[in-house]
């Protein structure tokens, strides 16, 4: 990838570079043909009455080193990108270097995971080495959103409880990690009705989990809940197949209380868990899923060293 889009620049750079190398050689050649008078080999400069600068010959090998550096430069420019847009005979790019290093890294850790591919999630969660690996993968890849302790925060689900939006089996967790998930709550105000209807249904939703609510409003809003039941189920128990949260527990991912529920009904919400299949290998995802599963299903409680 060249930074220079105009045609002239690469040519200009190449000419300047090659001319510079050639000038070095010419200078060396001229200097090697020059002679100095042997009798008094000082430069003629005198400081502090008796300090004189000598003009002694340089060792020949030093000049040889100069020539070698010029040759090295020339060879480098042939093999590697340096002359404008010339890609170099080795076709080296920083991107290919990165990719080969990543591939080498993956090949290096592969044997680590070989043992785990045949193990079940329960075994993995109990295995100290898998647990340590999972912990590290989690800290490096998941903790940014879900928190170092995996308890999440507003908008980012808690992974240590038993409330799962998309199912909590190891396979489902692995699928969430690999494919990502998209939580989609459409704006439902139109389906529910007027602003009062929305407030009433919100109070009904709060009543499902025994949260503080206005019981009269909840009674009125109960009939309007049919619009919500399509996804959240008639009792508001949620539906993991759709990623619809359970409304009858006290876990509120996007905020708790009447205001938050009203805003959710009015505005809806799109929440995204990014896919990691390209970033993590299948074995890594398996180990990570088992670790996450173990957080709420009693994984290893003692961690030994990962070798």
């Amino acid at each position, binding site marked *: 990838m060249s930074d220079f889009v105009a045609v002239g620049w690469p040519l200009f750079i190449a000419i300047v570079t090659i001319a510079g190398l050639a000038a070095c050689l010419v200078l060396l050649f001229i200097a090697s043909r020059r002679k*100095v008078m*042997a009798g008094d080999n000082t430069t003629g400069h005198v400081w502090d009455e008796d300090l004189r600068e000598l003009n002694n*010959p340089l060792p020949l090998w030093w000049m040889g080193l100069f020539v070698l550096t010029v040759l090295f430069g020339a060879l480098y420019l042939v093999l590697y990108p340096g002359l404008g847009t010339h890609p170099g005979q080795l076709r080296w790019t920083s991107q290919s270097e990165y990719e080969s290093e990543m591939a080498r890294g993956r090949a290096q850790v592969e044997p680590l995971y070989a043992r785990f591919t045949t193990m079940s999630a329960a075994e993995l969660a109990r295995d100290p080495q898998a647990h340590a690996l999972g912990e590290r993968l989690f800290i490096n890849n998941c*903790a940014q959103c879900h928190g*170092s302790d995996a308890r999440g925060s507003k908008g980012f689900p808690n992974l240590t409880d038993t409330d799962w939006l998309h199912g909590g089996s190891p396979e489902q967790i692995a699928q969430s990690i690999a494919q990502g998930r998209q939580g989609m709550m459409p704006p439902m105000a139109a389906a529910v009705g007027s602003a009062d209807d929305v407030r009433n249904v919100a109070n009904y939703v709060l009543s499902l989990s025994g949260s503080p609510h206005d019981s009269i409003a909840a009674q009125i809003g109960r009939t309007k809940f049919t619009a919500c039941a399509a996804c959240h189920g008639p009792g508001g128990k949620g539906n993991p197949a759709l990623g619809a949260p359970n409304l009858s527990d006290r876990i509120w991912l996007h905020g708790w209380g009447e205001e938050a529920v009203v805003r959710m009904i009015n505005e809806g919400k799109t929440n995204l868990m990014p896919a990691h299949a390209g970033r993590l290998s299948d074995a890594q995802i398996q180990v990570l899923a088992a670790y996450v599963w173990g957080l709420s299903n009693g994984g290893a409680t003692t961690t030994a060293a990962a070798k």
Partner: protein
Amino acid sequence: MSRPASRVIPIAPVSDDTGEMVSLYAKQATIHARSVHGWFAAWRWALVWLTQLVFYGLPWLPWNGRPAVLFDLGARRFYIFDLVLYPQDFIYLTGLLILSAYGLFLFTAVAGRLWCGYACPQTVYTEIFMWVEHHIEGDRQARLKLDAAPWGAAKLARRSAKHAVWLAIGLWTGFTFVGYFTPIRELGGEVLALIGLAGPGSAGPGPWEAFWVLFYGFATYGNAGFMREQVCKYMCPYARFQSAMFDHDTLIISYDGGRGEPRGSRPRSLAHDALAAQGKGDCIDCTLCVQVCPTGIDIREGLQYECIGCAACIDVCNGVMDKMAYPRGLIRYATQNGLTAGQSRLDWRRVFRPRVLVYGVILLLISVGFVTSLVLRSPMRVDVVRDRGTLARLVDEGRIENVYRLQIMNATESEQRYRVVVSGIAGAQAQVRDEVRLAPAESRWVPVAVQVPPQSAAALGPGAHPLRFEIIREADGMQPAASVSEKSTFVVPR
């Protein structure tokens, strides 16, 4: 007897023939130094043995089931006997460099280029290579003859034998050098596999290991076999700046011109007492001091920048003085002031002059600080990092929770268990999910949740408040408990 306080060193023209034109690039004449024996040569050999026993021996020394000295760049761990250093301990390298620098300043101020003459690897390997050369090709005269001789079977045999031995020493040196970074026994196995002496299934050395063995081996062969004095004259920066530490009380290799001149040959029968009457000095002009000089200078012209202070000329001249039954010390370690004052002995009062005392005191202070700091080094390191995703959250019963990651590093060589305690906020409690147990030299991120009861949070009010973490290493049978304290902040939401 009065002497001039200083003498002008004559400029040696590049050619005796005035009017001759000389190229700006000159091929260097090979210097064939004559071998030398004596007091200072013995010291040099003692230092050759000492430094090289350490250099070649250390990688092979086992210690706690690992090499005693190993610089594991891949794992970023430096093992030096019982000491394990981490990247965080990089300051010790700075300390080591400062110690080396002040050590160099100190003994350069006292006795000139001592390091160059006796202990510098360039000198030491040159000495070893010259010993090989001396034993295969003979001494100076024989080597000069061999250089001039036409190529024949005998010359070829001697030359190739010499280079074979040199290359072997060079390769072994390169192998040893890499053995400081890769456990040398493994490296040895890899090399054996490479030349087909190991069992099947053993891998050869990695490309970088092979490169460094060859590179370092080639550098040893080239520098000690061919470059020799050129390194000191044209490449070495220390050689240049050591002259800045010289003063008129620095011991330098000096020719006592007042005693030696006028030089010249004389019959052996002439007694020392009768010399003055004959108008002769003590120097018999045998030029042995020039022949033994590894940098090819004539010390009788005074101190020159090429002189590395190896004292070979002192040893050989003392031998000649003994043969002539003259007193020793025509060429000797002496100071400019001492020579001017005509002293034959060292004036110790001048050795302990302010410059030397200051260097000595600084060196002592830094050494004490360095050792103390190493002894008191904490067996663990801790970093507290607040989670960025969530500043604070409300959990059961209105408690406020903040999440932190502790990077704990076990700087010991045994497994350790740790506890985390927080202080600074009333009722604050740290919760760690699992028991924190770290393998030797392992470092790990440990998530820690800190909960503060609602009444403390209300008393503090919203905002960030100081919090102190104490990470306690549990005592075991071997060692007492240790702890590290780290500051952080606790956020109470609005």
